[in-house]
Protein backbone atom coordinates (compact mmCIF):
# COMPACT_ATOMS: atom_id res chain seq x y z
CA UNK A 1 0.00 0.00 0.00
CA UNK A 2 1.30 3.46 -0.86
CA UNK A 3 1.98 5.76 2.06
CA UNK A 4 -1.23 7.69 2.70
CA UNK A 5 -1.30 11.44 3.28
CA UNK A 6 -3.74 13.31 5.51
CA UNK A 7 -5.40 14.50 2.31
CA UNK A 8 -5.99 10.88 1.26
CA UNK A 9 -7.49 10.25 4.68
CA UNK A 10 -9.87 13.23 4.36
CA UNK A 11 -11.00 12.05 0.93
CA UNK A 12 -11.60 8.54 2.20
CA UNK A 13 -13.68 9.93 5.03
CA UNK A 14 -15.85 11.93 2.62
CA UNK A 15 -16.33 8.81 0.50
CA UNK A 16 -17.31 6.80 3.60
CA UNK A 17 -19.75 9.52 4.65
CA UNK A 18 -21.55 9.27 1.31
CA UNK A 19 -21.69 5.47 1.58
CA UNK A 20 -23.10 5.76 5.09
CA UNK A 21 -25.88 8.08 4.00
CA UNK A 22 -27.06 5.46 1.53
CA UNK A 23 -27.23 2.75 4.17
CA UNK A 24 -29.45 2.50 7.21
CA UNK A 25 -28.11 3.60 10.56
CA UNK A 26 -27.55 0.20 12.14
CA UNK A 27 -25.26 0.41 15.12
CA UNK A 28 -26.16 3.94 16.24
CA UNK A 29 -26.19 4.28 20.03
CA UNK A 30 -24.38 0.99 20.44
CA UNK A 31 -21.14 1.08 22.38
CA UNK A 32 -18.20 -1.24 22.95
CA UNK A 33 -15.88 -0.24 25.81
CA UNK A 34 -12.60 -2.11 26.01
CA UNK A 35 -10.64 -2.36 29.27
CA UNK A 36 -7.10 -1.27 28.42
CA UNK A 37 -5.43 -1.11 31.83
CA UNK A 38 -2.11 -2.83 32.59
CA UNK A 39 -4.02 -6.11 33.12
CA UNK A 40 -5.96 -5.74 29.86
CA UNK A 41 -2.82 -4.95 27.84
CA UNK A 42 -1.00 -7.94 29.37
CA UNK A 43 -3.89 -10.23 28.41
CA UNK A 44 -4.02 -9.04 24.79
CA UNK A 45 -6.65 -6.28 24.79
CA UNK A 46 -4.94 -4.63 21.80
CA UNK A 47 -5.67 -7.74 19.73
CA UNK A 48 -9.29 -7.67 20.91
CA UNK A 49 -9.61 -4.00 19.92
CA UNK A 50 -8.18 -4.84 16.51
CA UNK A 51 -10.57 -7.80 16.12
CA UNK A 52 -13.62 -5.67 17.04
CA UNK A 53 -12.61 -3.04 14.48
CA UNK A 54 -11.98 -5.61 11.71
CA UNK A 55 -15.28 -7.39 12.31
CA UNK A 56 -17.28 -4.14 12.54
CA UNK A 57 -15.63 -3.08 9.28
CA UNK A 58 -16.41 -6.42 7.63
CA UNK A 59 -20.06 -6.10 8.71
CA UNK A 60 -20.28 -2.43 7.64
CA UNK A 61 -21.10 -1.31 11.17
CA UNK A 62 -19.35 2.07 11.08
CA UNK A 63 -21.68 3.72 13.60
CA UNK A 64 -20.86 1.54 16.60
CA UNK A 65 -18.88 3.50 19.19
CA UNK A 66 -15.64 1.84 20.25
CA UNK A 67 -13.90 3.38 23.24
CA UNK A 68 -11.29 2.44 25.82
CA UNK A 69 -11.21 2.59 29.56
CA UNK A 70 -8.84 1.48 32.31
CA UNK A 71 -9.18 -1.65 34.41
CA UNK A 72 -12.80 -2.57 35.25
CA UNK A 73 -11.76 -4.55 38.32
CA UNK A 74 -11.99 -8.00 36.74
CA UNK A 75 -8.27 -8.55 36.14
CA UNK A 76 -8.63 -12.33 36.39
CA UNK A 77 -10.71 -12.54 33.20
CA UNK A 78 -9.03 -9.96 30.99
CA UNK A 79 -9.47 -8.80 28.32
CA UNK A 80 -12.79 -7.35 29.56
CA UNK A 81 -15.26 -5.49 27.38
CA UNK A 82 -18.51 -3.71 28.21
CA UNK A 83 -21.19 -3.82 25.52
CA UNK A 84 -24.08 -1.37 25.58
CA UNK A 85 -26.94 -1.98 23.17
CA UNK A 86 -30.29 -0.18 23.52
CA UNK A 87 -33.02 -2.58 24.63
CA UNK A 88 -30.55 -5.05 26.13
CA UNK A 89 -28.92 -5.17 29.55
CA UNK A 90 -25.41 -3.67 29.72
CA UNK A 91 -22.98 -6.57 29.83
CA UNK A 92 -19.35 -6.94 30.85
CA UNK A 93 -17.74 -9.75 28.90
CA UNK A 94 -14.53 -11.41 30.09
CA UNK A 95 -11.78 -13.40 28.37
CA UNK A 96 -12.59 -11.63 25.13
CA UNK A 97 -10.01 -13.05 22.75
CA UNK A 98 -10.07 -12.44 18.99
CA UNK A 99 -12.68 -15.11 18.26
CA UNK A 100 -14.95 -13.99 21.11
CA UNK A 101 -14.68 -10.37 19.96
CA UNK A 102 -15.88 -11.39 16.50
CA UNK A 103 -18.67 -13.45 18.05
CA UNK A 104 -19.83 -10.52 20.20
CA UNK A 105 -20.18 -8.40 17.04
CA UNK A 106 -22.08 -11.11 15.17
CA UNK A 107 -24.31 -12.19 18.06
CA UNK A 108 -24.72 -9.36 20.57
CA UNK A 109 -24.46 -6.37 18.22
CA UNK A 110 -26.12 -7.82 15.10
CA UNK A 111 -28.64 -10.31 16.50
CA UNK A 112 -29.17 -8.98 20.03
CA UNK A 113 -28.23 -12.32 21.58
CA UNK A 114 -25.73 -12.44 24.42
CA UNK A 115 -22.59 -14.55 24.25
CA UNK A 116 -23.53 -16.23 27.53
CA UNK A 117 -20.36 -18.16 28.31
CA UNK A 118 -18.32 -14.94 28.45
CA UNK A 119 -20.67 -12.83 30.60
CA UNK A 120 -18.93 -11.88 33.84
CA UNK A 121 -20.94 -9.01 35.22
CA UNK A 122 -24.28 -7.18 35.23
CA UNK A 123 -27.28 -9.28 34.10
CA UNK A 124 -28.91 -11.73 36.50
CA UNK A 125 -28.16 -15.42 36.00
CA UNK A 126 -31.61 -16.29 34.60
CA UNK A 127 -31.23 -13.64 31.88
CA UNK A 128 -27.85 -15.02 30.79
CA UNK A 129 -29.13 -18.57 30.46
CA UNK A 130 -31.84 -17.44 28.09
CA UNK A 131 -29.35 -15.75 25.82
CA UNK A 132 -30.61 -12.31 26.80
CA UNK A 133 -34.11 -12.88 25.50
Amino acid at each position, binding site marked *: *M*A*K*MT*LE*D*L*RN*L*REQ*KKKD*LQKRDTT*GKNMQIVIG*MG*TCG*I*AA*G*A*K*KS*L*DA*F*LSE*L*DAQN*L*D*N*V*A*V*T*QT*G*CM*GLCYVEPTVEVIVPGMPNVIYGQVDVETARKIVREHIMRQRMVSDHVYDRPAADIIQNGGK
Partner: protein
Amino acid sequence: MHAAVTDFLLDIIQNSIEAEAAVVTVVFNQTETVLECSITDDGKGITPEELNQIQDPFYTDGSKHSARKVGLGVPFLFQAAEAAEGKVTIHSEKGKGTECRFSFNPKHIDCPPLGDIPGTFLAAISYPGDHELIIERSLFRAGEKSSYEVSRLELIEAVGSLSTAGSLNLVKLFLHSQEDSVMDPG
Protein backbone atom coordinates in the same frame (compact mmCIF):
# COMPACT_ATOMS: atom_id res chain seq x y z
CA MET B 1 3.78 -9.54 32.70
CA HIS B 2 3.53 -7.97 29.26
CA ALA B 3 4.30 -10.04 26.18
CA ALA B 4 5.65 -7.41 23.79
CA VAL B 5 7.75 -4.24 23.83
CA THR B 6 4.78 -2.31 22.45
CA ASP B 7 2.68 -3.43 25.45
CA PHE B 8 5.09 -1.61 27.77
CA LEU B 9 5.02 1.40 25.49
CA LEU B 10 1.20 1.62 25.53
CA ASP B 11 1.12 1.26 29.31
CA ILE B 12 3.57 4.16 29.79
CA ILE B 13 1.78 6.38 27.23
CA GLN B 14 -1.42 5.91 29.25
CA ASN B 15 0.37 7.09 32.38
CA SER B 16 1.18 10.34 30.58
CA ILE B 17 -2.43 10.77 29.42
CA GLU B 18 -3.72 10.04 32.92
CA ALA B 19 -1.27 12.65 34.29
CA GLU B 20 -3.47 15.22 32.50
CA ALA B 21 -0.86 16.07 29.88
CA ALA B 22 -1.81 18.50 27.10
CA VAL B 23 0.92 17.18 24.81
CA VAL B 24 2.49 13.73 24.85
CA THR B 25 5.42 13.03 22.50
CA VAL B 26 6.44 9.47 21.74
CA VAL B 27 9.69 8.66 19.94
CA PHE B 28 10.17 5.10 18.76
CA ASN B 29 13.61 4.46 17.23
CA GLN B 30 14.67 1.09 15.99
CA THR B 31 18.12 0.11 14.75
CA GLU B 32 19.73 -3.27 14.25
CA THR B 33 21.37 -3.09 17.68
CA VAL B 34 19.04 -1.07 19.85
CA LEU B 35 15.40 -0.30 20.33
CA GLU B 36 14.81 3.05 22.01
CA CYS B 37 11.60 4.71 23.10
CA SER B 38 10.89 7.93 24.88
CA ILE B 39 7.60 9.22 26.18
CA THR B 40 7.58 12.89 27.19
CA ASP B 41 4.63 14.74 28.67
CA ASP B 42 3.72 18.08 30.21
CA GLY B 43 1.44 16.47 32.79
CA LYS B 44 1.38 16.86 36.53
CA GLY B 45 4.71 15.13 37.21
CA ILE B 46 5.84 13.41 40.39
CA THR B 47 8.31 14.11 43.20
CA PRO B 48 11.70 12.31 43.50
CA GLU B 49 10.23 10.33 46.39
CA GLU B 50 7.23 9.19 44.32
CA LEU B 51 9.58 8.32 41.46
CA ASN B 52 11.33 5.92 43.80
CA GLN B 53 8.04 4.47 45.03
CA ILE B 54 6.51 3.74 41.61
CA GLN B 55 9.34 1.30 40.88
CA ASP B 56 8.00 -0.85 43.70
CA PRO B 57 5.24 -3.22 42.46
CA PHE B 58 3.61 -3.06 45.91
CA TYR B 59 3.15 0.70 45.75
CA THR B 60 0.13 2.54 44.39
CA ASP B 61 -1.23 5.98 45.27
CA GLY B 62 -4.68 4.37 45.48
CA SER B 63 -6.31 6.95 43.20
CA LYS B 64 -7.48 4.47 40.57
CA HIS B 65 -8.56 1.52 42.72
CA SER B 66 -8.97 2.31 46.39
CA ALA B 67 -8.71 -1.31 47.58
CA ARG B 68 -5.75 -2.29 45.42
CA LYS B 69 -2.27 -2.71 46.86
CA VAL B 70 -0.20 -3.07 43.69
CA GLY B 71 0.91 -0.84 40.81
CA LEU B 72 2.52 -2.96 38.13
CA GLY B 73 2.92 -0.88 34.96
CA VAL B 74 6.29 0.76 35.64
CA PRO B 75 7.81 -2.19 37.60
CA PHE B 76 7.01 -4.49 34.64
CA LEU B 77 9.04 -2.22 32.37
CA PHE B 78 12.06 -2.13 34.71
CA GLN B 79 11.98 -5.90 35.10
CA ALA B 80 11.79 -6.62 31.36
CA ALA B 81 14.42 -4.06 30.37
CA GLU B 82 16.87 -5.30 32.97
CA ALA B 83 16.39 -8.87 31.74
CA ALA B 84 17.32 -7.88 28.17
CA GLU B 85 20.34 -5.58 28.66
CA GLY B 86 18.00 -2.64 28.44
CA LYS B 87 17.66 0.50 30.48
CA VAL B 88 14.89 2.65 31.88
CA THR B 89 15.33 6.24 33.01
CA ILE B 90 12.55 8.47 34.25
CA HIS B 91 12.88 12.19 34.89
CA SER B 92 10.00 14.03 36.41
CA GLU B 93 9.28 17.39 37.90
CA LYS B 94 6.19 18.04 39.95
CA GLY B 95 3.85 20.36 38.05
CA LYS B 96 5.98 20.32 34.87
CA GLY B 97 5.95 16.86 33.36
CA THR B 98 7.70 13.57 32.97
CA GLU B 99 10.07 11.96 30.52
CA CYS B 100 10.44 8.18 30.43
CA ARG B 101 13.12 6.63 28.22
CA PHE B 102 13.67 2.95 27.78
CA SER B 103 15.77 0.73 25.58
CA PHE B 104 16.11 -2.93 24.75
CA ASN B 105 18.84 -4.90 23.03
CA PRO B 106 16.86 -6.59 20.23
CA LYS B 107 19.49 -9.32 19.88
CA HIS B 108 19.27 -10.36 23.52
CA ILE B 109 17.54 -13.70 23.99
CA ASP B 110 15.24 -12.23 26.65
CA CYS B 111 14.19 -9.23 24.58
CA PRO B 112 10.40 -9.43 24.18
CA PRO B 113 9.00 -9.43 20.64
CA LEU B 114 8.17 -5.98 19.24
CA GLY B 115 4.45 -6.66 18.91
CA ASP B 116 1.95 -4.90 16.71
CA ILE B 117 3.32 -1.39 16.13
CA PRO B 118 0.45 0.24 14.20
CA GLY B 119 -2.07 -1.52 16.50
CA THR B 120 -0.32 -0.01 19.52
CA PHE B 121 -0.26 3.47 18.00
CA LEU B 122 -3.99 3.12 17.18
CA ALA B 123 -4.82 2.14 20.77
CA ALA B 124 -2.67 5.02 22.10
CA ILE B 125 -4.18 7.59 19.72
CA SER B 126 -7.77 6.52 20.39
CA TYR B 127 -7.42 6.60 24.18
CA PRO B 128 -10.02 9.21 25.19
CA GLY B 129 -9.14 12.83 26.02
CA ASP B 130 -8.48 16.22 24.43
CA HIS B 131 -4.68 15.95 24.50
CA GLU B 132 -2.27 15.99 21.59
CA LEU B 133 -0.19 12.86 21.02
CA ILE B 134 2.70 13.06 18.58
CA ILE B 135 4.40 9.87 17.48
CA GLU B 136 7.78 9.89 15.74
CA ARG B 137 8.68 6.47 14.44
CA SER B 138 11.97 5.68 12.72
CA LEU B 139 13.82 2.63 11.54
CA PHE B 140 17.52 2.53 10.66
CA ARG B 141 18.48 -0.37 8.45
CA ALA B 142 21.66 -0.90 6.42
CA GLY B 143 22.62 2.74 6.87
CA GLU B 144 19.23 3.98 5.62
CA LYS B 145 16.72 5.81 7.75
CA SER B 146 13.00 5.64 7.12
CA SER B 147 10.50 7.37 9.34
CA TYR B 148 7.07 8.89 9.76
CA GLU B 149 5.34 11.19 12.20
CA VAL B 150 1.67 11.29 13.19
CA SER B 151 -0.30 13.77 15.22
CA ARG B 152 -3.47 12.77 17.07
CA LEU B 153 -5.14 16.16 16.62
CA GLU B 154 -4.38 16.18 12.87
CA LEU B 155 -5.95 12.75 12.56
CA ILE B 156 -9.05 13.93 14.46
CA GLU B 157 -9.23 16.93 12.14
CA ALA B 158 -9.09 14.56 9.15
CA VAL B 159 -11.51 11.81 10.22
CA GLY B 160 -13.58 13.37 13.01
CA SER B 161 -14.03 12.04 16.53
CA LEU B 162 -12.07 8.84 17.15
CA SER B 163 -14.97 7.16 18.92
CA THR B 164 -16.70 5.22 16.15
CA ALA B 165 -15.62 2.06 14.38
CA GLY B 166 -15.73 3.87 11.01
CA SER B 167 -13.25 6.60 11.95
CA LEU B 168 -11.01 4.18 13.88
CA ASN B 169 -10.82 1.88 10.88
CA LEU B 170 -9.72 4.81 8.71
CA VAL B 171 -6.98 5.69 11.19
CA LYS B 172 -5.99 2.03 11.34
CA LEU B 173 -5.61 1.97 7.54
CA PHE B 174 -3.57 5.18 7.68
CA LEU B 175 -1.22 3.88 10.40
CA HIS B 176 -0.68 0.60 8.55
CA SER B 177 0.23 2.49 5.38
CA GLN B 178 2.77 4.57 7.35
CA GLU B 179 4.29 1.50 8.97
CA ASP B 180 4.41 -0.38 5.65
CA SER B 181 6.31 2.52 4.09
CA VAL B 182 8.95 2.22 6.82
CA MET B 183 9.21 -1.56 6.73
CA ASP B 184 9.31 -1.73 2.94
CA PRO B 185 10.48 1.66 1.65
CA GLY B 186 11.12 0.27 -1.88
